[in-house]
């Protein structure tokens, strides 16, 4: 396992490698449509219900960049961005719904302290600002793209890290949260793409 993206979850926290998007991050919003048989690892077994007013949220996901490449690389300039708000594909055999009334927010603040997400299962996660995870947040898909990336920061607030002598977290913790409004459609939103980019000197 070289450099990878991990999600921290639970009280420990536990960690899981989510690189490549194969493991669900828990933000695949599935508005409530009566089908509780989904089997995503995070959240989607407890889909976020469509609010009649206001917003409901996924549990906040905490991710970070991790490396176990020893003695050879220096890391810097870690960033996160998206492929934009995805359009509904045509044809659409999986029946995806548009992102109308649905957003993924990224916390404006990143830090080195893990805090477990809170919320009410089968209803709503605690909104990230309200939980005190960040002072403000930004719509990731609508704002950050390859031309406008969000800087994440290095673990410990340094300018670069490495060469490392033991496996470690190299980025600050980044927090993401899905939010639904009353105009969202029932169903699964079109999968969105989120990237992390980092520089290696080697």
């Amino acid at each position, binding site marked *: 396992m*070289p*450099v*990878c*993206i991990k999600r921290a979850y639970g009280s420990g926290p536990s960690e899981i490698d*989510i*690189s*490549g*998007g*194969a493991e669900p*991050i828990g*933000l*695949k919003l599935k508005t409530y449509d009566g089908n509780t048989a989904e089997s995503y690892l995070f959240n989607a077994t407890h889909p976020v219900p469509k609010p009649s007013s206001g917003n409901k949220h996924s549990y906040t996901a905490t*991710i970070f*960049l991790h490396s176990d490449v020893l003695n*050879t*690389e*220096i890391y*810097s*300039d870690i960033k*996160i961005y998206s*492929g*934009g708000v*995805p359009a509904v*594909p045509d044809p659409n055999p999986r029946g995806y719904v548009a992102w109308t009334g649905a957003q993924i927010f990224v916390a404006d603040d990143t830090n080195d302290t893990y805090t477990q997400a809170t919320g009410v299962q089968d209803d709503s996660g605690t909104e990230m600002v309200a939980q005190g995870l960040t002072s403000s947040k930004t719509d990731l898909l609508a704002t950050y793209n*390859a031309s406008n990336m969000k*800087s994440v920061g290095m673990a410990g607030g340094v*300018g*670069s890290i490495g060469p490392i002598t033991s496996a470690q977290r190299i980025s600050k913790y980044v927090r993401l949260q899905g939010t639904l409004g009353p105009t969202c459609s029932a169903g699964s939103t*079109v*999968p*969105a*793409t*989120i*990237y*992390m*980019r*980092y*520089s*290696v*000197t*080697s």
Partner: protein
Amino acid sequence: MIHDWDSHYWMAKLPSGKWISAANHSSFEPIFQTATKIRIEPLSSLSAQAVLEAEVPDGYTAFLRTDRVEIVMKGPDAASGPKLIYVMALEKGHWDDPGRVALSTVPLKDGFRAELRIFPDGHGEVDFNSSGNFISEVANMGECDLYRFIEV
């Protein structure tokens, strides 16, 4: 260091005329900062056939980075972005340990930034930004395109 995920690697010409490369050096080693010419070359015929080259004028610092792109969440458009970006940069001035410098903290005032972007299907694209006193020239060398970044 050359990684198993690399499609290209760097070379640097020392004042003695000897070339060193990523095969046995790291660009954060002090010897790299003595280079008078730097290149990024394809590792094989399967790599995007593009070479990036620049002379390092006196008073300038050379930076090489390999930017990797990891997918956090994968949508249908995930393959449309680059997965690997080889960055070559020059900037006038001195940095004690330029291999450790976050390039984003180095303003483009007198120098250039060039990127060779490698996409999931293997093709490459070159992007070039300059403070105005460097230009980019491209020459076709048979099966390979040579991009030279020249001080004017």
